C-alpha cells in the first residue's frame, strides 16, 4: 500500500501573552478543536494535522498534500488559546521538513521579548510598555476602555507613533 503524500507548513504564532505562554500541547489541542469544528470528524479523518515542532513563536505542521486550503482555514480560524488572543499566520508550504525549515523558518529569531516597564505619555494615549520587538511596541493603556470592542488587552503601536510625540518621552533612538 502506498504511503499518503504529505506537506509541511511553517507558521508563525502572534500572541498577546508573554513569550512562551503557549505550550505545544495547547496549540495542538486548538488545532484539533478548530478542525473538528470547521470540518467535522469526517474532514479531520482525511487530514490528520500533526505538530512537528514549535518553539513558542514559529512552528511546523504536517498535513495531507491535497488539503492545503482546509489546513490554512483551520489555522486561520483560531483566534484565542486558553483565553489569550493569538493569530496564526502560515509562512509557506513545502514537501519536506528540511526545505520548509530552510525556506520559511528564520534561523535566528529573538524569542525573549524585552519588557522594561517604561511609560508612554502622549496626548491621546498613556500607559506602560509591555514588550517591544523591533519597532513593534505593545502598550497596556491606563484607560482600559481604550481597547474595548476589539477584544484585546493591549494596544499595538510602533516606535514611529511614539517618536517626536510628547516632551515627557525620554527621547531615545527608538522614540520611547
Amino acid at each position, binding site marked *: 500500500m502506498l504511503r499518503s503524500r504529505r506537506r509541511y507548513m511553517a507558521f508563525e504564532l502572534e500572541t498577546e501573552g508573554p513569550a512562551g505562554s503557549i505550550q505545544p500541547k495547547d496549540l495542538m489541542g486548538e488545532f484539533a478543536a478548530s478542525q473538528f*469544528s470547521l470540518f467535522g470528524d469526517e474532514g479531520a479523518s482525511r487530514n490528520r494535522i500533526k505538530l512537528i515542532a514549535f518553539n513558542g513563536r514559529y512552528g511546523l505542521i504536517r498535513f495531507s498534500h491535497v488539503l492545503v486550503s482546509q489546513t490554512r482555514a483551520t489555522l486561520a480560524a483560531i483566534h484565542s488559546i486558553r483565553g489569550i488572543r493569538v493569530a496564526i499566520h502560515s509562512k509557506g508550504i513545502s514537501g519536506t521538513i528540511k526545505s520548509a525549515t530552510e525556506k520559511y523558518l528564520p534561523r535566528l529569531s529573538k524569542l525573549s521579548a524585552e519588557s522594561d516597564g517604561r511609560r508612554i505619555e502622549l496626548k491621546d494615549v498613556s500607559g506602560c510598555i509591555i514588550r517591544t520587538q523591533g519597532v513593534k511596541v505593545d502598550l497596556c493603556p491606563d484607560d482600559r476602555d481604550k*481597547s474595548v470592542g*476589539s477584544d484585546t488587552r493591549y494596544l499595538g503601536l510602533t516606535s*514611529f507613533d511614539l517618536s517626536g510625540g510628547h516632551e515627557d518621552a525620554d527621547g531615545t533612538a527608538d522614540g520611547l
Partner: protein
Amino acid sequence: MNFYECVKVYPEGSSSASRMALTARNLGYKGIIICNCDPTRIFMLPAAERVKGIEIAVGVEVVASNVRALKSRIGALRIRYPFLAVRAATDETVHIASEDPNLDLLVYPCDVRRPLSIATARAAKANQVSIGFDISPLIHLRGSPRARWLQAVSRNLQLVRKFHLSCIITTGARSHIDMRSPRDLAALAEVAGFSPEEAEVALNRHEFLLAQNRRHWVGPGVEML
C-alpha cells in the same frame, strides 16, 4: 497580486495605523484602507506613512443617526475620501446605501433572518455598489452560531452570483491580531462557499475602486484630465 484590507485603527480599534501597516506588509498586502468612522481622529497617521512598502489609503465607514443624514453624509464625504463603506445595520440603511452610486462598499451582515434581498441586489448592481462579506464570524464564532452564519453567507452568495455583483472579503480587523494573510483569507472564504477565483477577485477589488475614485470625475462617464 495586489491585495488590500479594510481595517479600523486606534482610537476605534486597538492598534495604531503604523502597527496595522507593518503587520499588513509582513502578511503580503499591497495596502490597507483605514475605514474609521471618524477619519479626522486617527492616531498618528503620519507615522503609518513612514512604514515603507505599503500603501495607506484613508477611507470612511459612514455612520449617521438616520437615513437622511446618511445620504447627505455620503455625498459630503465622497469628494474628500477615495473609499466609502457602510455597515448595514437596518433595512432603511441597506435601502439607502444600495441606491447611492457614491458608495463603494456595503458590508452586509449575514443573518438568516435578514438575507440579502433581490431588490437590494438589483439596486447594488445598478449603482455599482460592492457587497462586503465580513468573515470575522468564521474566526470568532464556534458551533451553531457559526453554522447559521455560514447558511446566511451561502444564501447571500447565491444572489451575488445571480446578479453578477462585485464582492469584497474583509475581516474587519480592529487589531493587528485580527489580521489574516490574503491566502488565509481566501482559504476561509472557500470554507464559506466562495470559489478560489471569486475569493481572489474579491481581495483585489479594493485597488480597482481606489484607482477609479482617485480620478477626477466631473459627471457620469466624464473625466477631467
